[in-house]
């Protein structure tokens, strides 16, 4: 589904994006590895991941970034994401809970784009992903 486009003029610096809880289940991770062809044990098997010194099987970084893109597309239906930049600050273990959200931090009147801060916080309160995106609203 895609909703009504959010008008550029209606977006203000400081606007908060909704908080979402992405699906970190093993079936979701498997589906992502099908799409990405990144079928590494560290993403699919807790024991294999721990053998590499990791706390458990990890959500692929690109999948985390994908959650943020999906959030942006729902917040601003029909938008074009011109750039997304994420820093992975800590591991996000599969089959846990996380919160994805963001906030508008800049408005470019000339380009008609907005810059958005993005974060993913795990269930211990650790911020595991931070980043920014430049978004061109559809309207």
């Amino acid at each position: 589904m895609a909703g009504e486009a959010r008008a550029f003029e209606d977006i203000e610096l400081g606007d908060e994006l909704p908080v979402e809880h992405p699906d970190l289940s093993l079936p979701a991770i498997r589906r992502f590895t099908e799409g990405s062809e990144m079928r590494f044990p560290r993403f699919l098997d807790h024991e294999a991941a721990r053998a590499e010194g990791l706390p458990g099987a990890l959500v692929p970084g690109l999948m985390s970034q994908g959650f943020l893109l999906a959030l942006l597309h729902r917040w601003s239906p029909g938008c074009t994401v011109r750039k997304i930049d994420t820093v992975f600050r800590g591991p996000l273990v599969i089959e846990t809970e996380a919160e994805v959200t963001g906030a508008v931090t800049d408005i470019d009147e000339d380009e008609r784009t907005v810059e958005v801060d993005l974060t993913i916080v795990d269930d211990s309160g650790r911020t595991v992903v931070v980043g920014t995106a430049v978004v061109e609203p559809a309207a």
Partner: protein
Amino acid sequence: MILDLHTHSIKSDDGRAKVENYCKWVRKKELPLDGFVLTEHRQFDDTSDYRHLEDEYGLVILKASEVETDYGHVLVFGVNDDLVNSFDFARVDNPLPDVLEAAERCGAFAAPCHPGRRNVGLFAHYERKGPVEGVHTVEVLNGGSIPGEDELSVERAVAHGYRGFGGSDSHIVSRIGYCATDFDDDVRDIDGLVTALRGGRFAPVSFREEEMDRDD
């Protein structure tokens, strides 16, 4: 007077915040900040001039550095040419005693940041190697801390008799002001900040709960 003593801009390799956007955010969100200090990773930015932003937004914007030592990261306020020539800001393993001595000698102020951080914070190193003379102040509240780290920082700082301050450690705009430092005195420039830090009349403050309230 409340200042966020620990922020990063796009000048830091992992920073994503433009300084003007910090200013806009502080004003738009009506954060209880009178200013902030840019503590860029492993460098001192001696080229950027933010005085026009100070005038436009009515904020104090100061520049400092976050350097790396064999006992963890250290914030250095009052960076000058003498200090820059005293040790290599780009190095990841400067001996902490050398950094502390150089800061003292050059009229600057050095204080370990996020000392409660697992594995790499000051107090983790203390457990392995023992305490270091010359540490007197540490960052006890850090906006990037995971649960438990600030509590450890506070507990160990008290045990060692260290003073404590706060900073957000923001790398993105929306995290500025998560933690800060409340000074009794007015601070308008970097010399004033160093004097105020030396004077010890300050306290760490956290605005995390209020940030959460704003999200509701």
